[in-house]
C-alpha cells in the first residue's frame, strides 16, 4: 500500500493567542508541534504498512520551518517526506489548502490511501480532509476510529458517530480523517532520529505540482474572516422546582417532548 499522511505544523495549543486587530493567530515566539490528531494519522499509516506492506509518505504544506515537523515524522518511522512550500501558497484558506495538497498527492503517483487528522487544533475547520477527497474525486470517510481491512481495491473502516459507530466500505484510493480513539501514537526511535537528521526532504513549489496559480494562496481563497472570538460558554440546564412528585412529572413530560424515549 502506498499511504500518504497529511500533517500540519501548528502552534502548541497551550500558548495560542489571537491578534484582535488582524484576527489571525499570533505565531511569533510560540513553539510549533505537529497537529496532535495528525500523530494518530501517522501512527495508523505506519501500522498499515506493518500489516500490509508498502510505504508511508508525509506531506505538509507550509513555510520552510515546517520541515521540522517532517523530520519528526521520519523519526517515528515514516519512510519519506515532502514539503510543499512556495510564497504563492501564503494566505491559503481551506479551499486553496485542499487543492494544493490534492495536486501534490497527484504528483506522488499511484497512492492508495490518504490519511488526515480529524481537524487541526488551530484552524479547527475539519475541512481539509474532505476537501482533498473532493479535489481528487476519491472516496472519503471522516472520524475513522478503526481500519478493519484493506485489500483488493477496497477498505473497510469504523467511523465514530455520536451514538456508536458506522461500518463503511469504500473503494481505494480513498481519503480518511482519523480520531484519537484509533490508536496510541508511538514515540520516535533512535534509528529513526538518526535517519531524520540526515534525510533529504524535497521541497515542491507551485510549479512542481503543476497547480493553477488562480487557485492558490490568497487568490484562491474566497474565505472572508469577519471576526474571530471565543464563543461564550453557556451551559443549557434547567433546575426543576416543586415537590418531588411535581418534579418527576415535569421531568417525564420534558423527556417525552424531547423525543428521547
Amino acid at each position: 500500500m502506498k499511504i500518504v499522511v497529511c500533517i500540519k505544523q501548528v502552534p502548541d495549543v497551550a500558548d495560542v493567542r489571537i491578534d484582535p486587530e488582524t484576527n489571525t493567530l499570533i505565531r511569533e515566539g510560540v513553539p510549533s508541534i505537529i497537529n496532535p490528531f495528525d500523530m494518530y494519522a501517522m501512527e495508523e499509516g505506519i501500522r498499515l504498512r506493518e500489516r500490509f506492506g508498502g510505504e508511508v509518505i508525509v506531506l505538509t504544506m507550509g513555510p520552510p520551518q515546517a520541515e521540522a515537523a517532517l523530520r519528526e515524522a521520519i523519526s517515528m518511522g515514516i519512510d519519506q517526506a515532502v514539503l510543499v512550500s512556495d510564497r504563492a501558497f501564503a494566505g491559503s484558506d481551506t479551499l486553496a489548502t485542499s487543492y494544493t495538497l490534492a495536486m501534490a498527492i497527484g504528483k506522488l503517483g499511484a497512492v492508495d490511501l490518504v490519511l488526515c487528522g480529524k481537524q487541526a487544533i488551530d484552524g479547527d475547520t475539519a475541512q481539509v480532509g474532505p476537501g482533498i477527497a473532493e479535489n481528487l474525486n476519491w472516496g472519503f470517510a471522516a472520524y475513522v476510529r478503526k481500519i478493519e481491512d484493506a485489500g483488493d481495491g477496497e477498505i473497510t473502516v469504523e467511523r465514530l458517530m455520536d451514538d456508536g459507530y458506522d461500518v463503511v466500505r469504500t473503494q481505494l484510493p480513498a481519503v480518511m480523517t482519523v480520531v484519537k480513539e484509533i490508536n496510541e501514537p508511538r514515540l520516535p526511535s533512535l534509528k529513526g532520529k538518526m535517519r531524520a537528521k540526515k534525510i533529504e526532504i524535497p521541497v515542491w513549489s507551485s510549479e512542481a505540482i503543476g497547480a493553477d496559480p488562480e487557485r492558490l494562496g490568497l487568490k484562491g481563497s474566497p474565505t472572508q474572516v469577519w471576526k474571530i472570538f471565543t464563543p461564550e460558554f453557556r451551559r443549557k440546564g434547567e433546575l426543576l422546582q416543586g415537590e418531588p412528585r411535581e418534579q418527576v412529572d415535569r421531568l417525564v413530560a420534558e423527556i417525552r417532548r424531547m423525543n428521547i424515549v
Partner: protein
Amino acid sequence: MDYFLSEEQLMIKELAAQIAREKVLPVRAELDEKEEFPWEIMRVLGEADMFGLYIPEEYGGLGGGILENCLAIEELSRVCIAVSVSFAASGLGAYPILLYGNAEQKQKYLPPVAGGKSLAAFGLTEPNAGSDAGGIQTTAVKDGDSYILNGTKQWITNGGEAEIYSIIAMTDRSRGARGASAFIVEKGAPGFNFGKKEKKMGIRASATRELIFEDCRIPAANLLAREGMGFIVTMKTLDKSRPGIAAQGVGLSQGAIDEAATYAKSRVQFGKPIAAQQAIQHMLADMTTQTEAARALLYAGCKFLDSNPKSISKEAAMVKLFATDTAMKVTTDAVQIMGGYGYMREYPVEKMMRDAKILQIYEGTNQIQRNVIGLELIKEYTGKKEGVAVG
C-alpha cells in the same frame, strides 16, 4: 553541568528522558505496589532501539559504548530504578555473548536482544555463593553433543521474564575457580525451571527469581569461550556492566533532588518555606554536589572504559561504589527534607529510598568494590602492573 556530549549522546538522553516522563512516571507507583513486571515499558524501549545502544551495528545495535548505555540508564533511573534494572540486566546477560561469543552465537542471540524482542539475564549467584562466587555448586557435565546442568541460581534479575540466560557453572570442580565455565541457556530448555518471584524491599517491579536446573540439557555449542573461562567471562562482564549500576545511582539521586528541592520551596513552616532554612539549603547543596561528582566520575569512567584499556576493574568499581553510596545518602536526605510526607507512599521519595539500598548490594557489594579497588591499588604499588611509576 555541561559534559559536552555529542549530538547523538544528547539525542539518546532526550529520548530516554521522554520515555521516562511519558511512559514510566505515570505507572511507577502502581508497578511498585503491584510488583508487576514493566513489560509495556520494555516494549517501548525496544521500539525506541534502546536495547541495542552498546551492541555493534552488524548485530542490529547502534554501535555505541558503555557511556551511551549509561546515559539511557541514568535518565530512566531518574524516574524508576526498578524499570532501569530490568533494562540494564538485559545488557548484563548479553555482555558475556558480546565479549566471548563466537560468530554463530553472536549472530543468533544478539539481534533479538538489540531489538528488545528478547530480554537477557545473568546467572551467577547461588544460595551458598554470593560475594564468594568461587563457591558456586551448579555443575555442567559434557555428554556427547550436550552439556547437562544441575543446580540452583538465586536472585536472578529478569529470571522468568528473559529468553536468554548467561549461566556460570562448574565443569571441573577439582580446578576451583579455574573450573568454571559460561553457557547460554534458552528459556524452555528441558529441565530448566523458575522459582517463585521474590518479595523485595525495593525495585519491586523488577523480577528476581531462582533458576532451577534439573538435568537440564543444552547443546554443547552453547558453551561460551572455552571450558574454565567462566570466571574470566564473569569478571570482564561485571567490569562492563558496573557503570550501569552507577548510572542508576546518579539518575536516582537526581530524581530525589528533583523531588526534595521542589517540595522544600513549597512547604511552609514557621512562616516561611523550609527552603529558606539554611539547614535545608545545606543538605540540598551537599546532595547536589555529591550527585554531580558521581556523574562526573561516571562519565569520565565510561569514556575511559570505552577507550578499551587493558584493565578497567578498578575504575569500574570506583564508579559503582561512589555513585551508589551517594544514591543511598541522597535518597535518605530527600526523605529527611520532606519529613513525614517523605515517609508516606503518596510521595515518590519513600520508594526511592527503599530502592536505593539494592545499588550497594548487587553486582558486587560495595565492600567487594572496595576490595577490588584495594587489590588493584596494591598491585600498582608493588609494581606488578606495567606503566606504574612508584616512589
